[in-house]
């Protein structure tokens, strides 16, 4: 008897909950956001904004979906599975060149985290010494900057495409590899190599300090959902600001998301990633405000892309950058 009442009340609660959820969903306009990679601290600001209810406070409903091995963020944009995605500036430029009508509505990162790393024991001390060497590079893209750096040295390397681990580098299968300072570089450290055993060549030191993560949507979405997108951007920046000021909390949120996604994870690496990603968001000497994309950076990225792809760009800065933040 007692159990019956209990079950009954549970059912009522469930119905009420579902109804109210529907009501909220019905009331708030919804944005589906897809970061360009699996859950990690690189996207802490979005998770925090969602977790702290900044999106709801702004008057929108935001769902975060992640790409998979079979489906990249750009594909999700095309298929309509996502309204907004995050992309590297140079990836977005390339996509637009290939006909995907994306626009940048806000630039989160202002600097490049890309660098080459080599073991000191390999004897490689300068970038030009990579000439003729086997160099690991992401198979999935993001390779334009790295390739521009090598081209700038007038040398040739044997590029070895790599999926996601640093194991080939650890096993000395390659002489050097391109890494994100906030990600693969720390994985190497966390695999037992010390920083003083490594030589690094950061893109920023070789004239390639091109911004990375930005927020993109289809031009049509931009035109139809301006108010919602503006709210999304504002709440996202608020999320990043909160994450910067409450890093432990932000890490907790990230770790929770990673566990749900069954991703191997540890706090130390995510902490390193968050700290570095937040550093990339600082204007440095570029004099940009939060969320702004500098025309200079756009031009630099276009130039690098043009050189690597050997194609003429068919659009101008104002076609590409549609700032929604005042």
């Amino acid at each position, binding site marked *: 008897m007692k159990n019956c009442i209990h079950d009954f009340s549970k059912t009522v609660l469930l119905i009420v909950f579902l109804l109210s959820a529907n009501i909220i969903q019905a009331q708030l306009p919804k944005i589906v956001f897809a970061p360009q990679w699996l859950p990690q601290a690189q996207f802490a600001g979005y998770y925090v904004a969602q977790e702290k209810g900044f999106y709801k406070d702004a008057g929108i409903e935001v769902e975060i979906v992640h790409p998979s091995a079979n489906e990249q963020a750009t594909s999700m944009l095309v298929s309509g599975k996502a309204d907004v995605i995050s992309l590297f500036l140079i990836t977005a430029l390339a996509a637009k060149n290939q006909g995907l009508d994306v626009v940048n509505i806000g630039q989160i990162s202002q600097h490049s985290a890309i660098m080459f790393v080599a073991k000191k024991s390999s004897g490689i001390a300068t970038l030009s010494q990579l000439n003729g060497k086997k160099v690991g590079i992401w198979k999935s893209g993001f390779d334009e900057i790295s390739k521009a750096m090598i081209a700038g040295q007038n040398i040739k390397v044997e590029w070895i495409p790599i999926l996601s*681990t640093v*194991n080939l580098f650890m*096993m000395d299968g390659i002489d050097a590899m391109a890494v994100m300072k906030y990600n693969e570089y720390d994985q190497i450290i966390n695999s037992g190599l010390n920083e003083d055993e490594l030589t690094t060549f950061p893109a920023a030191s070789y004239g390639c300090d091109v911004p990375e993560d930005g927020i993109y949507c289809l031009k049509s979405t931009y035109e139809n959902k301006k108010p919602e997108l503006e709210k999304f951007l504002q709440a996202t920046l608020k999320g990043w600001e909160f994450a910067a000021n409450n890093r432990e909390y932000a890490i907790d949120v990230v770790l929770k998301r990673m566990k749900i996604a*069954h991703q191997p994870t540890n*706090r*130390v690496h995510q902490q390193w990633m968050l700290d570095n990603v937040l550093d990339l968001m600082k204007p440095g000497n570029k004099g940009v405000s939060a969320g702004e994309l500098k025309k200079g950076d756009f031009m630099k990225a276009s130039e690098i892309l043009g050189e690597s792809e050997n194609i003429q760009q068919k659009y101008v800065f104002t076609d590409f950058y549609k700032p929604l933040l005042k």
Partner: protein
Amino acid sequence: MHNQHFMAKRTLSAHIIRNVLLFCAGLFLVTFSIYYYFTRSTIEETTRENAVFLANNTVNRIEQVLTPAEKVPQTVAKMLESSFLTKDSLFPFLKTILKGDTNIFGSTIAFEPNYFADKGTYFAPYVCRKGDSITSSMLGHANYEYFYMDWYQIPKMTNAPYWSEPYYDEGGGNILMTTYSVPFYTIKGGKRIFSGIVTIDVSLAWLTEIMSSVKILETGYAFLLSRNGVIITHPNKDYVMNESIFTIAKENDQPGMRLIGRAMIKGKSNFEAADFHSKWHSGKLWIIYKGLPSSHWSLAVIYPDNEMFASLYKINIILVLLILVGLSLLSFFTIKIINDLTAPLKHFADSARLIAAGNFDVQLPEIKTEDEMKELYNSFSFMQKELAEYIVTLKDTTAAKEKIESELRIAREIQMSMIPHIFPPFPDLPEVDVYAILKSAKEVGGDLYDFFVIDGNKFCFAIGDVSGKGVPASLFMAVTRTLVRSISDKEFSPAAIVSTLNNSLALNNESSMFVTFFLGVLNLETGELSYCNAGHNPPVIIRKDGSAVMIEKTKFIPVALFEDFQYEELTLQLRHGDKVFLYTDGVTEAENADNKLFGDEKLMEIVRENNAVSPRELINKVEEAVAIHVDGYTQSDDITMMTIFYNE
């Protein structure tokens, strides 16, 4: 007195106990330290041996699975190189492999892109277990480009077999897996070229079982690291496949853990005190680690220090308790022994006090032992006897001494009665007033003075000082005084009197004694004073006007030295109101504690200050001044003074 004695005894006892306890405690500390050091070393060595055995044993258990598994793809690679296998026979062949070895979960032979012209980019027959059956599939498509997978790429690039980092097989029920890949080569166009990879997937479910079966001490545990330091097995499930030893080291700020991690992934082997603290297991830890030859993973076993040395700590507590009991017993018995030993001493002390009080017959404590206490008893007994005898002798001596003293007292009385001591001496002789004192340094003295009337109207006075002191001097003085009186019955001039006296005394003077002597004869009518000074201190003439001078010295020798020595006399004129002050060297040579003499000058100063006073008062003043000067210092010589006032 009794308390003092009691305190002294307690201090002696405490002193001995303290020293004994300090020594024993020191000895214990040294012994205990040595014992502790060696026992600890022994335990450490034994644990090391056991740990090495355990680690080797566990590594072997794992190797027993991994090493045979390595053989399969190695053989397949050789078969492929020798073209023993055709592309169509691969699926059945792989299935045979799985059927033959239950440890193998899956297997593939993955070829390079477009290796077979008719098979396209991807050609990788793959079989794996699904429940009880074995399924087959072809790997490779646009979203699974196996050429870039670690299991393919790493052995290809390094030209060496490779055990992959463990991973969770997402398709196969989330089992922890690892893949062993062997590159194979074929001859194409006369050249041996890389052609693909043979792999076997090994489930690691058994690994966790082996590792968790390693139970050491109470809470010791084992864990396994991959080649990159990733935790493959650990009692804390949250660590597994999430953390590496390096991320744990960084999170807990333990650089020592990172160092050991680096040694481990390099395949090194050691047993050492862990230079880190673990969040997972508190306290000091020991660690043994050893690399796995096949997969280059590393096994570690953690030994909690407190459990490792638990037996030692237990024995330590027992030892400390035993030592405490031992020291207590030692104290107790030491106190008892000391008390037993020193008990006779107390009796001896009591006896000594009784003996000191005069009870020589007191019973000494009975000593049965033949030791130092017996010697003390003998000494006491001897002392008792000797003291008794000594006291008897002392009694006799004291009686004799008392008798002598009594006789001396009488002698003194006799001596003092020989000199005039009633003042004023001549109440019916108004012309002269006399006062004199004699203070002997001993019972009887060698000083003398005398005065009397001779020849009708002449006042004769004398003062003298016999050499030496005591009884001989007093006898000589008595003789001198008697002779002076008898001689002056017939002779009236000072020179004659003194000469006669000298002759009498010098005769038969065996002991060579002598007397400094002054004798004056004052004509009371005329005031003429004739005198003879035989080596005596010059008297002082105090004139009525207050001036005072010492009579010029006449250079005669003291009497009794040489017979027939011719003494002469001098005269001077006294006027009424003049005084003559006579004294012996006991006055001028009175010494104080600093050996400073009273002196002639001081004497003259006192005399001049008191030039107008009566003879008695003058002598009192000088006596006072002398007393102040010596300030209680022992009088060494007789003091004699005499003043004659020639009345108006």
